[in-house]
């Protein structure tokens, strides 16, 4: 007789296929919304198949209460969080969700570990050296090591993306620290090895829950130490890498519970997330190893000795009068100062005077890849005006004014020389425009710690100040013309 429960495994095949097509379609603009839908349907299929399989097994579902309550509470919280989030808070939310995913995998592994080690059959039989116990034992340890690290790392990344946090019951805002002396790397390697050793020890001493708790503790600390030394501008890479890790954790959990769809979806997301991480590193001309283990810029920071006289918004408004083409170059600073709506207002005013306006998007501008697009979309900037770096760079030659807001390293011409920390990084050719207006708080060096020659050129006008404040003043000056 055909075993119905085994036939149901075909449902997992359906859901894995939907995931594959989902991810594939998400990488192309036209099919992306459908791809996301495929992923969601795939998940629904996987959940339904699992519930059916459990119901059809000997004894049926015993834990209905836990299952329904968990699904209900989780859906309500997830729905609430996703529907109340501001567009600008999106990167933080993705980081938080990612942490939850990693934690879920790790919790399953821990739950299975506790159940296995405390069950009577296990204690009596002690089939330690047989493969069917060896694998889950190893997988429980591996899932714990990766999963808890994903949780704590994602939480730190979330706070770094926010920039800080408010102390409860007071209104005091604390900047989130970035701390990482070079000896910390040895500590990280040491902790990781300790984690691996403990996983191996679970083989010879499998009933020992203390080992599992030890792995959990080591992993939690590792996650914190990994993200703490990395600066805010590198968070895109970190979140992407953590996304990959949460996939790997799910795959290991798949080995714990012996479930194929977990293994397939988990390892696929793990690999795809890693590719995305490399794509981002490449765009920043950074090595993943450097991002994770070197305090970037830190010691070799150039101190600025030159000076430049700042301009005022009225001057800039006069320059803008009568031009025909303006390219706006947004950066991290626009995201931090939340000035995208004012930028859009500025662009609208120029367009009323028949100025051609477009936006130059550097692949790593902002806090996450594509962050500028999302922020500007929120401010109702038409999609066609957002142009990627490679396409727009040739247009700066006949551009009258380039307005750089909150960007520094991504427009630093020194990158073309191929030397120094920025050497070889693709940049936006803002320096080719007739006049370059730069809104920035000071002349200080950017994230890479390199001085920017563009600031000191004669055709460059510096507007020193907070992005939002300067944009507002510039808009007022434009109106008064």
């Amino acid at each position: 007789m055909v075993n119905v429960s085994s036939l149901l495994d075909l449902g997992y095949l359906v859901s894995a296929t939907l995931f594959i097509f989902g991810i594939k379609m998400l990488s192309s603009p036209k099919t992306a919304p459908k791809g996301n839908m495929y992923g969601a349907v795939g998940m629904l299929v996987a959940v339904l198949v699992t519930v059916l399989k459990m119901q059809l097994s000997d004894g049926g579902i015993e834990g209905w209460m836990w299952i329904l309550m968990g699904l209900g509470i989780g859906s309500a919280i997830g729905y609430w969080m996703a529907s109340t989030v501001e567009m600008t808070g999106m990167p933080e939310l993705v980081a938080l969700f990612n942490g939850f995913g990693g934690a879920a995998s790790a919790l399953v592994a821990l739950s299975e570990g506790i159940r296995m080690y405390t069950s009577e059959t296990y204690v009596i039989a002690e089939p330690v050296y047989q493969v069917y116990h060896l694998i889950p034992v190893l997988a429980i340890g591996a899932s714990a090591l990766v999963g808890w690290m994903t949780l704590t790392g994602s939480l730190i990344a979330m706070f770094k993306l926010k920039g800080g946090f408010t102390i409860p019951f007071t209104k005091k805002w604390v900047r989130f620290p970035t701390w990482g002396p070079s000896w910390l790397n040895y500590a990280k390697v040491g902790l990781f090895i300790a984690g691996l050793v403990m996983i191996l020890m679970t083989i010879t001493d499998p009933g020992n829950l203390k080992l599992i708790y030890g792995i959990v503790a080591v992993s939690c600390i590792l996650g914190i130490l990994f993200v703490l030394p990395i600066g805010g501008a590198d968070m895109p890479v970190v979140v992407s890498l953590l996304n990959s890790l949460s996939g790997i954790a799910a795959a290991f959990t798949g080995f714990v519970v012996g479930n194929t769809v977990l293994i397939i979806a988990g390892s696929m997301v793990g690999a795809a997330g890693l590719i995305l991480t490399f794509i981002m590193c490449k765009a920043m001309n950074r090595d993943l190893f450097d991002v994770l283990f070197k305090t970037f810029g830190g010691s070799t920071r150039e101190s600025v000795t030159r000076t430049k006289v700042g301009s005022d918004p009225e001057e800039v408004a006069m320059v803008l009068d009568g031009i025909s083409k303006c390219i706006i170059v947004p950066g991290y600073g626009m995201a931090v100062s939340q000035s995208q709506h004012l930028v859009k207002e500025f662009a609208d005013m120029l367009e009323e005077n028949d100025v051609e306006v477009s936006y130059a998007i550097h692949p790593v501008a902002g806090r996450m890849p594509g962050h500028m697009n999302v922020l500007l979309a929120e401010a109702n900037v038409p999609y066609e005006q957002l142009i990627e770096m490679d396409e727009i760079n040739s247009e700066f030659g006949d551009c009258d004014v380039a307005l750089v807001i909150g960007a520094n390293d991504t427009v630093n011409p020194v990158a073309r020389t191929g030397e120094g920390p920025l050497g070889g990084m693709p940049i936006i050719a803002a320096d080719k425009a007739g006049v370059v207006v730069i809104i920035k708080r000071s002349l200080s060096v950017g994230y890479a710690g390199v001085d920017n020659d563009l600031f000191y050129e004669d055709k460059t006008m510096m507007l020193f100040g907070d992005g939002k404040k300067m944009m507002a003043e510039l808009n007022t000056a434009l109106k008064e013309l």
Partner: protein
Amino acid sequence: MSDVIGLFMTLEGFILSLTVFALAIFLGFELISKVPATLHTPLMSGANAISGISIVGALLAANYVEGNTATILAFLAIILATINVVGGFMVTNNMLQMIRGKKRGGK
């Protein structure tokens, strides 16, 4: 219940799973090679929602009535995984709608 939580009963079963694991990794590497920057964040968010597949593991682990530590942990796992899944797909959808909506609404 032991037939649902299919601990690997045979070496063959394990090797088959390991094969699936390795192939899925290769598939993941090949799946995305060219992604426009606009879609990086939605793709990351969508892939993140899919990694909430651990919801399946959480469901399997919660299917015991003991009400002991193991069950509580599995229950927490269901909640967290469901937040990841529901919130993740919704946020991704919102982002994509925004990008697409503005595209249509453009001048």
